[in-house]
């Protein structure tokens, strides 16, 4: 197989509150022989908040982020759903609207850059499925996740809005997504079927409406628990933060006692392909309940 190389847009969370995401992404890529070139010039994507405040600035900054992948002749991969949402949104808009592209490029010209539209922007999860292939991944499994009930939590921004993300996630049906379930199957785990798997954790109102966020996270965790989950896995560090770091307050918000480890997708893959837990940063996860037994 041709060696896969991508420009990595790591985002701010992987380098701050979820160091385990950074560690596990690097370890998994390394073990699978995938080269990730960290985009050292990239800025924060601004999430939806910068778009709310200054939509044009958000567009120009993300166009610049894409430019650096283009200049390296690499496709971009993201490891956070919200980064994916923002950057893919900008790419889709620039590719479809020549007028907007012109205007953005006029601004980029001030710093000697030009958006061309030559690099795709995908979440690492879908790059793995599409380019590396689940069959190949299955062959690398040395520690099958047999008998572990794993609740896939997709996170909104990787699958919605369909009219943007479907161009970057192999047309995933947001009402009935299967990518993460298939990944779990490839690692020989048991995907848990539950209604909340494609719903929202509420992260984006954590500060201004914490009750809303806690309740939404709590409902999702409760639904996963009620359907027999031993753990949750998600490709989004923001969902992971809400479900892991805020698990106590989320449980309280739905009057339940929930204890469910929440892993990043790359941590789960790492365990199955035989990377040791330390290199996957498992000690950074807050909810350790039952984790040792599950992975031993």
């Amino acid at each position, binding site marked *: 197989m041709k060696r896969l190389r991508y420009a990595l847009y790591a985002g*701010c*969370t992987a*380098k*701050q*509150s*979820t*160091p385990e995401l950074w560690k596990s992404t690097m370890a998994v890529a390394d073990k699978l022989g995938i080269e990730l070139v960290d985009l050292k*010039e*990239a*800025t*924060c994507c*601004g*999430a*939806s*908040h*910068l*778009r*709310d*405040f*200054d*939509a*044009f*600035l958000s567009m*120009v*900054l993300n166009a*610049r982020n894409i430019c650096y992948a283009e200049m390296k002749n690499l496709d971009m991969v993201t490891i956070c759903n919200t980064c994916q*949402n923002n950057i893919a949104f900008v790419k889709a*808009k620039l590719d479809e609207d020549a007028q907007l592209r012109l205007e953005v490029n006029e*601004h980029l010209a*001030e*710093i000697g850059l030009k958006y061309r539209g030559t690099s795709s922007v995908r979440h690492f999860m879908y790059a793995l499925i599409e380019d590396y292939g689940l069959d190949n991944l299955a062959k690398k499994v040395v520690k099958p996740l047999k008998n572990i009930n794993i609740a896939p939590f997709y996170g*909104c*921004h990787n699958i*919605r*809005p*369909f*009219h943007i993300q479907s161009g970057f996630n192999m047309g995933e*049906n*947001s*009402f*009935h997504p299967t990518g993460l379930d298939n990944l779990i199957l490839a690692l020989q785990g048991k995907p848990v079927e539950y209604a909340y798997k494609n*719903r*929202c954790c*509420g992260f*984006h*109102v954590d*500060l*201004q*409406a914490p*009750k*809303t966020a806690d309740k*939404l996270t709590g*409902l999702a965790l409760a639904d996963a628990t009620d359907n027999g989950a031993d753990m949750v896995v998600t490709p989004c560090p923001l969902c992971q933060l809400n479900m892991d*770091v*805020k698990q106590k*307050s989320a449980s309280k918000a739905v009057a339940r006692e929930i204890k469910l480890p929440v892993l990043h997708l790359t941590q789960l893959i790492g365990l199955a392909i035989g990377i040791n837990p330390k290199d996957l940063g498992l*000690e*950074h*996860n*807050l909810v350790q309940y039952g984790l040792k037994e599950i992975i031993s």
Partner: protein
Amino acid sequence: MEKKRITFKVFRFNPAVDDLPHYESYVMEVKKDALVLDILNRIKWEFDGSFTYRRSCRHGICGSCSIRVNGKVVLSCKENVFELTDIFGDLLVLEPQNKQKVIKDMVIDRVDFWNKYTEVKPFLVAKYDEHPEVEARVSPDEASLMLDSDICIQCANCYSVCPSVRVNEKYYGPAAFVKAYRFIVDTRDHNKKERIDIINEPEKGVWDCVKCYKCAEVCPKGVNPIEKITLLHNQVFKEGRAKNNVATRHAIGFKKSIQKNGFLDEGFLVRYSEGIFGTMKHLREAFDMFRRGKIKMPWNMPSKPKKMNEIKQLIKVASKIECRRKW
């Protein structure tokens, strides 16, 4: 024409005789061109005359016929059954749009939806002479500001899937915001500032949108409510109506942090948005995170991106507080 056998498991509830809702199954040969509304009709006509549902126009105009199929909200007079079996297989579960609000079978109480819709004043507020010399003209360019916000049929699909509505009954929800947007950009309206203040209220207004994009997926008219919600956020800033609160500082904080560091300083964002007292609320959590190596200190912060000067320059030339017509 192609046909197949499909099982419909249907939510039934008649408060006059049932203590609890239950499901009944109906098996039918269904033609390739059948719509969900055809199935509702057949259940009533061929199986049980007491089966109750709302419909009127059969043309995607009245907005009354929405139900859920396997959890997906659909306008039943527009949704093809075979397309649903392609996604969900040959067992389709029919349920009311919102089970918590059921009156009978597929009929729900939509009073909360209509109340909130009314609160955003879904009508023109203007002081014109009754018999003016010249009419209030709207140029095609001005009319295009509305985008597609005036084709909403109030089917409440977006409202019924909105997670923020689900956990906070005060939140106006996507359809009301679409309507608010429609009148805010209407050049004939004289009530712009007051309208913006209505959608700018904490708990009720746009700041409580969790950005899940669900409303964009379920609109049978392709209205994309969250696009209007983003534009409303932009309007709040452009018209100088932003209050100094956690939500607005949260939005502005992103720009400040990027300007200074290139990346988002998570600790700064919390402190800037919440203020000192607000930040104290997070101490316990922060302590847990610190113990697990999840909090960076000034001495081990990630390094700034390369070419910070480029980033600063770009922010200088590209900053615009504006409200564009299209994103």
